[in-house]
Structure formats: structure tokens, C-alpha cells
């Protein structure tokens, strides 16, 4: 009751806010967190929060790129495979090829750029839907990771150093333990918010996803923007893969399997439209937190392991239905 009264004047001042998809996602996230916290006191323990924060950036970073891409009206199913391939290539180069870690990372970066560029060029220049192009790319990239490793995980990574600290170093705040990847996620999130909301480029991205022909007619280089977004998404997937591999000191050719759908779920649960034109980075951050909390919380409250996905799927579905209803309401109102 008190909370509802507190929110009244806010709702009056900005009628759009409470109906916005980010806001409803935030409300649901809060409810979820409360439910988990009540169901199991350990949910909000420093150890568990540290745990969630360790995983969050890895999918969250990919989700930022995916949000921009979806807003421009395309999506990328190859991110999970790139997440797996990039660290495999980098670590193989160092471990078996004797290449310097800096040079190996550069090679990994170039590889991600190439994958993104190929995705983008085929989608824009040949005009095949991004669903089909990136689905094929998923198979190619995952297949490459399996082939060059012969299907085995690499031997564990035993070379600490500047880059490991930069991407996956950890530090303690009181009894919390955080990884530097959290800073990466926060920094990249702020950048993405700036670009989408405040920069000229963000205006172009939304316009392209909303009505490509209209954007092109105004001289917006729609194809170039899309190609760069594919490259960005691929690079972010590779970065996330490196962060993860450094954190657990190991690279596996099957790492990141299924991440593409999890990431897309984070993005649309946050309120970004799958059809393009409407994207929200804040919503994506909420979505990433939500999926993380769900995965973590249902373990704690004792849902049997094999039943996780039932819950995750149902909660995602509920979120999407809610967004759709809000959208309808807004259209009528």
C-alpha cells in the first residue's frame, strides 16, 4: 500500500514511465528477488550474490550487443559458438603455438571481427535473413571449435598475467568477492545506453529497425550500421568467452552452447522488441539480472535440476505476455 502511494506522483509526472517495458521488468525482478530471498535466506548472502555477479557479466556483455542488433531489426544466433571458439583459439595459440598472449588475443579479436563481418555482409548485401545466416554460422563456428580441439577441453590455463587480471581478476569488497568483468559490464552498459539513447548513431539504429526504407531515404547508411553491429556483437561474444575462460582457467569447445537463446531471452524479457525499432539497454540489464536470479534462485529453493528449464521457460513466457498486454494497453490509451 505504502509503496503504491509513493509511486503515485511519479506516475502522474511521467505517465509513460510506469507503462514502459523496463519498468514492468524491474517490478517483476524485484518480486522475484523478494520471493527467492524469503524462500531461502542464503539467496542474499554475500557468497551467493558474489556468485551471481561473477556469471552476470558474461552473458550480460553479449546481451548489450544483441540489444543494439535487435533494435536495428536483426539478430545473431552465432554468439554462443563464438563465445566458445574465441578462447579455444587464443589458448591453443599460446599453449601449442608458443604465441605471445597479446598477439594471440589480437588474433582472437580479428577472428571475431571476421565472423561478424561475414554475418553482416551476407545479411545486408545478399539479403538473406539473419536467422538463417547466423544459424549456419553457429554450426560453422561450433564445428570449427570442435574440430581444432578434436572435441576435448584444453589443458587448464596456468599463466596468470596482465590480461587475465584485466579480464577476470577478482577483488573483495567486505565479504563480497567481485570480478573485474563486472567493471567491464558496467562500463559497456553505460556506453551502450549513451549510444542508443543520446548519440546520433542510436537514432539511426532505432530508425533502421523501425522502418529501414525511411531511414535509407534520409541518407542513413543502414547496411553499414548493421554490418558494424554484427561485428560488435561478435566481438562482445568473444570478449565474454575470454572472460569466462580466464575466470575458470580453462577453455572448452562446447562452452557457451545454448547461450544465443538465453541472451535473446534476456533482451526481449527486458522489453526490447524482437521486431526492431524499440530497444532498451536498461531493460536488458534488468533482463540479464532476472535470468541470472532465476537460474540461481530455483537451485537454492530446491527445484530439481532437470526441471530448471521448465521454470525458466515459463517465467520468460509470462514476461513476454505481460509486455504484449502492456503494449496493447498503450496502443489503446
Amino acid at each position: 500500500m505504502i509503496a503504491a502511494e509513493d509511486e503515485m506522483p511519479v506516475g502522474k509526472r511521467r505517465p509513460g514511465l510506469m507503462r514502459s517495458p523496463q519498468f514492468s521488468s524491474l517490478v517483476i525482478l524485484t518480486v522475484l528477488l523478494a520471493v527467492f530471498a524469503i524462500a531461502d535466506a542464503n539467496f542474499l548472502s554475500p557468497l551467493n550474490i558474489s556468485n551471481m555477479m561473477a556469471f552476470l557479466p558474461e552473458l550480460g556483455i553479449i546481451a548489450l550487443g544483441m540489444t543494439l542488433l535487435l533494435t536495428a531489426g536483426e539478430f545473431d544466433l552465432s554468439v554462443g559458438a563464438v563465445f566458445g571458439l574465441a578462447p579455444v583459439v587464443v589458448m591453443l595459440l599460446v599453449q601449442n603455438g608458443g604465441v605471445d598472449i597479446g598477439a594471440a588475443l589480437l588474433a582472437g579479436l580479428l577472428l571475431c571481427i571476421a565472423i561478424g563481418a561475414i554475418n553482416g555482409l551476407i545479411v545486408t548485401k545478399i539479403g538473406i535473413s539473419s536467422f538463417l545466416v547466423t544459424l549456419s554460422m553457429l554450426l560453422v563456428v561450433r564445428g570449427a571449435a570442435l574440430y581444432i580441439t578434436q572435441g576435448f577441453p584444453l589443458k587448464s590455463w596456468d599463466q596468470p598475467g596482465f590480461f587475465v587480471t584485466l579480464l577476470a581478476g577478482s577483488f573483495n569488497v567486505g565479504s563480497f568477492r567481485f570480478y573485474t568483468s563486472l567493471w567491464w559490464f558496467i562500463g559497456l552498459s553505460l556506453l551502450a545506453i549513451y549510444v542508443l539513447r543520446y548519440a546520433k548513431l542510436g537514432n539511426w539504429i532505432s530508425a533502421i529497425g523501425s522502418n529501414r526504407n525511411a531511414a535509407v531515404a534520409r541518407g542513413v547508411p543502414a547496411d553499414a550500421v548493421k554490418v558494424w553491429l554484427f561485428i560488435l556483437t561478435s566481438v562482445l561474444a568473444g570478449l565474454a568467452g575470454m572472460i569466462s575462460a580466464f575466470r575458470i582457467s580453462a577453455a572448452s569447445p562446447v562452452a557457451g552452447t545454448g547461450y544465443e537463446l538465453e541472451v535473446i531471452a534476456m533482451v526481449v524479457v527486458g522489453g526490447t522488441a524482437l521486431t526492431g525499432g524499440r530497444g532498451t539497454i536498461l531493460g536488458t540489464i534488468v533482463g540479464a539480472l532476472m535470468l541470472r536470479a532465476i537460474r540461481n534462485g530455483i537451485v537454492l529453493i530446491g527445484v530439481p535440476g532437470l526441471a530448471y528449464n521448465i521454470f525458466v521457460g515459463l517465467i520468460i513466457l509470462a514476461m513476454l505476455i505481460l509486455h504484449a498486454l502492456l503494449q496493447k494497453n498503450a496502443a489503446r490509451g
Partner: protein
Amino acid sequence: MEVLRLQNLQKSFGSVRALKNASFALKEGEVVALLGDNGAGKSTLIKAISGVFPIDRGDIYVRGEKVSIRSTRDAMDLGIETIHQDTSLAPDLSIARNLFLGREPVKLKWLGVFAPLDFAKLRDAASALLKRVGISKKLDADALVSTLSGGERQSIAISRAMQFAAKVIILDEPTNNLGVEETHGVLRFVKEVRDAGHSVLLITHNIHHVFQVADRIIVMRRGEIVAEQTVADTDLLTVESIITGADMSALLKETRAK
């Protein structure tokens, strides 16, 4: 003074020859109506002029100089603004953002595409513009275009063309789906634009509108320009028969027999 001249433009889509040898000229401060049945090639012609796709063959001159228009940006830079038949706005963007799409006012210009939008300027310019065009209902520059009526959207698109003071404004069926009042608004706008010295190329299926605002008429049929007349020298029935391709000689004989 000739603002725009097209010479022997040709454009095919696969086996469809949408434009065969189209030529005409547009003078300063004149309104030319481009008429023709569905599929005659009108939209194709203006898309070629506005850089939506490249032409296969032919020349375009702007103010006597031969130009090559390879992109919509080229056309805009030459002072050719087009309002396309298939709506030219992005529905998920605000009115203000649409008005300045592709020409956003920014701060810190050196940041290129990453430059921050100048929101104050954006909003002020948008409100001023909406007022100047005289859109009757008060529109909020921050409102999403998806919340507007078809007529309101058309007015926004037209204000946008006007704002950049283009030499040539091309309107592809601007009064489609508009109410009576909004239609009058658009026609009034066309006259205003001409009086301000711009040239207008107007595509429409409504011949009454043509006789209200146009100085000259060009008729297309199956990718070709088949007739060119000044409005003062012709009448509604003649124009109608040219468009449908009714046999003119038969018509003349008939008239003579009477």
C-alpha cells in the same frame, strides 16, 4: 531557369522495363503533376531521381550541371527532397527525431556518429517547424509517430522536406488516405512551396487536385512519358483520356463528326 532535367532514363527490374527513355525538365518555381495509371512507372521515376536505386542508363542534370545520384544522401545534398508513397517515417521514433533523421543536430561534432544529439535544439526546431507548417492540432514534438494519424504523419513528412529548403520537392501521392481538411492543407502547402521559389513534382491519381495546383502535366504510360501539357491549355477530360490511353484519333473524329 531549369532546375532539373532528366534525359532518357531507363530502369528495369529483371524483365520488367519500369522506365523506358523517360525525359523531362522541371523549371524553377513550377509545380508539375506526374500522372499515370497504376504501374506506369511514376514511383520508379522519382525513386531514381531521389537516389533510392541507381538508374540503368540516362542522364540527370541539376541546374544545368550533369550529376550522378548514387544514394539518397547524394540527392539530398543536391537539394532534392522526396516524400515517398510508402510512408517515409520511422513509427517508433518521436516526431522530433523523425524530422531530423539523417541530419541530426549534435554537439561535439568531431565524435562523428557517436556525437550526442542536441536535444534542446532538436525540440525547439521541431516545435517551431510544426507551428510554421500550421498543423492545426497541437502536436508534441516528443510524441511517437506511431501514435499519429495518417494525415498527421503526412504533414510531418512534408514539414521535413520544407525545413531543409530543398530546390526540388517530390511528393508521391501525398493526399492518399487523407481527410478533406488535411488534403487542403497539403495542397495549400504545395502552393506555398512554389511561391517560395521551390519546384514541386507532384504524383497523384486525383485529377481535380492537379487542376488546383499544377502548372504543367506530364503523363506516363508503361514506363514512357506519353504527353506533356500546360494546365491552361487542356481540360480534365483530355487528360483523363491520355492517362487511360483511349484512342485520341477516334476521340477527335468523334468530336469533329459532331
